């Protein structure tokens, strides 16, 4: 009898501690679960991911469209077409034959390297973005002389079927009015 009471009294704090610890562990798990849920459903994180995807796709597409080898024109132009959409894509398809003969006649090899790029606008819902790209283009003539030229380009991206593609590309004008 006395033994029981003593044992019972001795156990009570231990069980209370166990209970409190379990509750605390439960609270911790709930808090961290909520925190994880918030992070996983963070709109700005999803937006940031879209921004980075748009930038990566845009830089690659700009590089593709400034790269062409006269010995493999068809391959190169196929890549141009898969990198683009919309109006730009249409222009490339329409002018393909003429362009092919021009490049074959000039016998040039053009390669491009992206120096830096940045997204300046992103409409995540509409699937539209704009980017700046600083580019170094190397043109090698038939006599193996090569010239380097830095260019700065403005690209417009459109998302089609979940993929960002160039829908517009042009040189940033020099000496115009300031914008952006």
């Amino acid at each position, binding site marked *: 009898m006395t033994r029981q009471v003593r044992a019972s009294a001795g*156990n009570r704090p231990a069980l209370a501690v166990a209970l409190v610890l379990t509750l605390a562990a439960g609270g911790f798990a709930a808090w*961290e679960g909520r925190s*994880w849920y918030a992070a996983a459903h963070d709109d700005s994180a999803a937006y940031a991911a879209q921004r980075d995807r748009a930038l990566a796709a845009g830089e690659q597409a700009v590089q593709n469209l400034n790269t062409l080898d006269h010995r493999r024109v068809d391959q190169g132009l196929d890549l141009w077409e898969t990198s683009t959409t919309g109006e730009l894509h249409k222009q490339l398809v329409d002018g393909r034959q003429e362009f092919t003969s021009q490049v074959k006649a000039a016998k040039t090899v053009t390669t491009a390297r992206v120096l830096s790029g940045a*997204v300046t606008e992103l409409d995540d819902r509409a699937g539209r973005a704009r980017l700046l790209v600083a580019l170094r283009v190397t043109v090698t003539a038939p006599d193996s002389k090569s010239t380097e030229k830095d260019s700065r380009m403005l690209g417009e991206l459109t998302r089609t079927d979940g993929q960002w593609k160039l829908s517009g590309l042009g040189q940033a*004008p*020099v000496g115009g009015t300031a914008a952006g």
Partner: protein
Amino acid sequence: MTRLPRTARREDTGADEAPEAGAGAATEPSEGPAKAGTDGGAAAATDQDTTRASGTDEHGTADEDGATDEDGTTDEDGTTDEDEAMDEDGTADESRRRRPAGAWRKAAPVAAATVLLLGGAGFHHAAHQLRSAPSARNHALTDTGATTRVSGDVAEGLARVFSYTPADTDAAERSSRTVLAGRAARQYGDLLAQVRTNLVEQRITLSTQAVRTGVIELDGDSARLLVFLDQTSRRDRAAATTAAAQLTVTAEYRGDRWLIVDIKAR
């Protein structure tokens, strides 16, 4: 075999009765398990062990409700008694069947706490992974206020330090102190020292405009930008010529504005 259940029963009943008496003065919920134990004691000798065994399991499940006092006590004593019984009789069937249940009852809160802690740690890790992902850490465009601010400060700063007239190179140098810092400030000082004589002798006027600014990366007080510049220079009264320049600029937020700390021509 016939002896063991009897011994166990005698010991167990003794163990069971005590908490009931002890709990008489205690709270109501504690009566439940104790009574169940007594009811079990009224059953037939052979059946009782099974009844009690299952009864114990039920208590084990009910432990979480907080009615744990008596069960815990019973359990400890029961284990001790069975140990003795096993030593005496050398038969351990009964104790083997009951001990895991008792151990489980004690281990349950520990196991639950461990599972919860591991789960919490898992969520913490996953959330950290998500938040520290490179794309999430970069606040370019996602933090529109800071993006606009850094673009404006950098564009304005570049325009000020790279615009000067022969009569007023000091003004450019003065403004450089408010918009440049670190490596960019040293580079600019060297540059200006080199060209100053030429500027004055050849009467060169330079006017710079940032025509496009894009934030590559923005993380807290540090940012990297791509800037397209138009630089119009005029030598004395000759016609102005405009040249394009592409820069990547590193900026740091200090005090109340973004300072340019590094400039690289692209």
